């Protein structure tokens, strides 16, 4: 992982599999031509433009997982985030659907295009989580799934004849939905986050925030933050991965003030003050989803999509995946696993999830 200074971008760019620079807010691109007034201008900075063009052509993958008890509005929120019906809601009043007896993992992929950029979005749903009477170890199927994706990627990487572009099915982000009790976290929430914060980026989210008044909301958030800290749970953005001061201050602000985001989701539009907004219409008023006075959906959306999308992928690749890879290689005696490499065959994936690194 590179800890280089922002100026020496060349080092960073060449050693990464994924382009490194953090996307800044829209800035008009410099014309690619040579500025005759600037002597000694090489034109290295045009690589950003080249990368941008490349990305636009190839598109990129993003895999987001949603975890939480049924009825917390997970599918609605994902649909609101990406402004399309990417997740089939369980509240489709389908009579035959029952609460699953074990946690199931359902991955649904969509291709979304915006401004010429194509994104292959995969939403991974986990129905049945936390819904049973006995929820002990209900996070194990989820951990297993995440490790399986790492395993898949590892296999592809270790292949002699590698694909040009390895399909990335690793989970980049996991939104964990906290029930808005107003008291504190549930034991199940703690257990899940303890086990999985070392394996995947977890972003805790307070669901159905329209059930709490402003004071209740801020009190609840404070209590949740404190509990997470006391229990040593590092949610994304993790403190230890802040690369420089700029990152640190930005992330600190988010960590200490905004997170966990208290959100409300909706896919219905209403007319408010002459504008059409996404919201929920109640007898006592209309809750505007994108209004920062009402809920923090806009903050979550900006955070996940507009500012930290690339970082989520990077942390997944550079840290979580590397941890998994190191463990696997160690188990294999330091030799890279894979078929056809000096006759060694990839050792079987352990039936129980890999113990997470301490």
């Amino acid at each position, binding site marked *: 992982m590179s800890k280089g200074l922002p100026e020496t971008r060349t080092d960073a760019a060449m050693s990464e599999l994924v382009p490194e620079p953090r996307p800044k807010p829209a800035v008009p691109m410099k014309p690619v031509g040579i500025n005759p007034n600037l002597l000694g201008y090489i034109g290295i900075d045009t690589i950003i433009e080249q990368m941008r063009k490349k990305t636009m052509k190839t598109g990129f993958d993003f895999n987001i997982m949603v975890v939480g008890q*049924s*009825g*917390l*509005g997970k599918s*609605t929120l994902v649909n609101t985030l990406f402004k399309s019906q990417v997740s089939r*809601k*369980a*509240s489709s*009043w389908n009579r035959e*659907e*029952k*609460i699953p007896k074990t946690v199931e993992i359902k991955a649904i992929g969509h291709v979304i295009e915006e401004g010429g950029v194509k994104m292959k979005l995969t939403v991974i749903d986990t129905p049945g989580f936390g*819904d*049973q*009477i*006995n*929820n*002990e170890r209900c996070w194990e199927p989820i951990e297993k799934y995440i490790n399986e994706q790492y395993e898949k990627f590892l296999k592809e990487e270790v292949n002699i004849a590698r694909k040009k572009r390895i399909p990335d099915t690793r989970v980049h982000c996991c939104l964990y939905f906290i*029930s*808005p*009790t*107003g*008291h*504190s*976290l*549930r*034991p*199940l*929430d*703690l*257990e899940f986050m303890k086990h999985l914060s070392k394996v995947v980026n977890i972003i805790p989210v307070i669901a*159905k925030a*329209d*059930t709490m*008044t*402003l004071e209740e909301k801020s009190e609840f958030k404070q*209590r949740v933050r404190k*509990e997470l800290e*006391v*229990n040593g749970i590092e949610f994304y953005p993790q403190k230890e991965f802040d690369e420089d001061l700029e990152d640190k201050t930005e992330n600190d602000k988010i960590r200490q003030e905004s997170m966990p985001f208290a959100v409300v989701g909706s896919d219905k539009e209403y007319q408010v003050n002459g504008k059409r907004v996404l919201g*929920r*219409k*109640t*007898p*006592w*008023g*209309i*809750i*505007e989803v994108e209004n920062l*006075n*009402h809920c923090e959906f806009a903050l979550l959306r900006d955070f996940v999509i507009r500012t930290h999308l690339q970082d989520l992928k990077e942390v997944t690749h550079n840290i979580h995946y590397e941890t998994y890879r190191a463990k696997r290689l160690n188990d294999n005696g330091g030799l890279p696993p894979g078929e056809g490499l000096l006759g060694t065959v990839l050792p079987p994936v352990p039936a129980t999830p890999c113990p997470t690194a301490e």
Partner: protein
Amino acid sequence: MDSLAAPQDRLVEPLLSPRTQAQRRLKDVDKQYVGFATLPNQVHRKSVKKGFDFTLMVAGESGLGKSTLVHSLFLTDLYKERKLLSAEERISQTVEILKHTVDIEEKGVKLKLTIVDTPGFGDAVNNSECWKPVTDYVDQQFEQYFRDESGLNRKNIQDNRVHCCLYFISLSGTGRLRPVDVGFMKALHEKVNIVPLIAKADCLVPGEIRKLKERIREEIDKFGIHVYQFPECDSDEDEDFKQQDRELKESAPFAVIGSNTVVEAKGQRVRGRLYPWGIVEVENQAHCDFVKLRNMLIRTHMHDLKDVTCDVHYEKLPRAVHPADDQVKLTQDSRMESPIPILPLPTPDAETEKLIRMKDEELLPRRVALASTTYPEVQFLYEAKALRTVLSPQVSSPEPNTWSAASSPCGVSGGATNC
């Protein structure tokens, strides 16, 4: 009534003036008037003096607004000193049963309200049998009442049986009942009146509430859960009442919102919750069903809840509660035979002996009066203070009405002599 009037009066009637006729009719009515129509008033006055008691249980996962709702219903804060546990403390917590009792008085009517709370229910990671402490508690109360009823001193029996259980169904988008909800309701539906509620209804829009209620009703039927049914109203009630009753039945399960704060809305101070997008008024029927719940629970159905608890749930129990007491198979029939159950009496301790003696002394005059109808000597002995006790008739003895009385100098008996 008129046919009972004396024949002479009837003959005389047409000759009297209308005014006298009216007076005469009133007097007739007076003659026919027995006067037991005032019985409800007498009962009312006695009950008001005695006061009522009501035990309400609230159950559901933590954080669903149970305490707030209780506060809103009865306008008393029972949870001032409550300490909320953190998640880690809750990992090792088991389900507790907490009782809070409060005496409320309104317009001279006293209500002793007991709220039974179940903190820790449904909170753990493994919630298997988390309703067991609750069923144990309910059974205990029934058993206690049974013992009290069969006991010696029945003057001041405390009725601690749970009359109603408000079960809070947790936030759900689809109305599917969770396994914990189903488990709890099935464990308790034959023992307590269960009234399911949709909690925190301010996160739902009206369309969702409607669908949710339908779905929950379907699920309740599907799982065969017997929730409290509102009794049918008599056909001779007025249309207004019938309409109210219909609305009540159609709004079950109630979607409620509770609040212990008062906010200013449209110039009025109301109980509600203040949001950036509007104010939710708890007592506004268009906002939630709180008013319906309150009316049902307190103003119209409280007595019915108590009745159903006594007549239906309690009656089902003694067989289940005392399977080992073969001698005390208290079925409906045997009750007729032995009004005083022949309990296998263990050797009484000092306390019980004292109670037995007190009771004996109390009952003595009555027993004497009864015995002296057959044996006048008993009355004579009693007045001479020579009578210590009168024994009750032995039901199992071969000779009917064998009385025996013991007194200090010598015994007087009808059948067997005991000198």
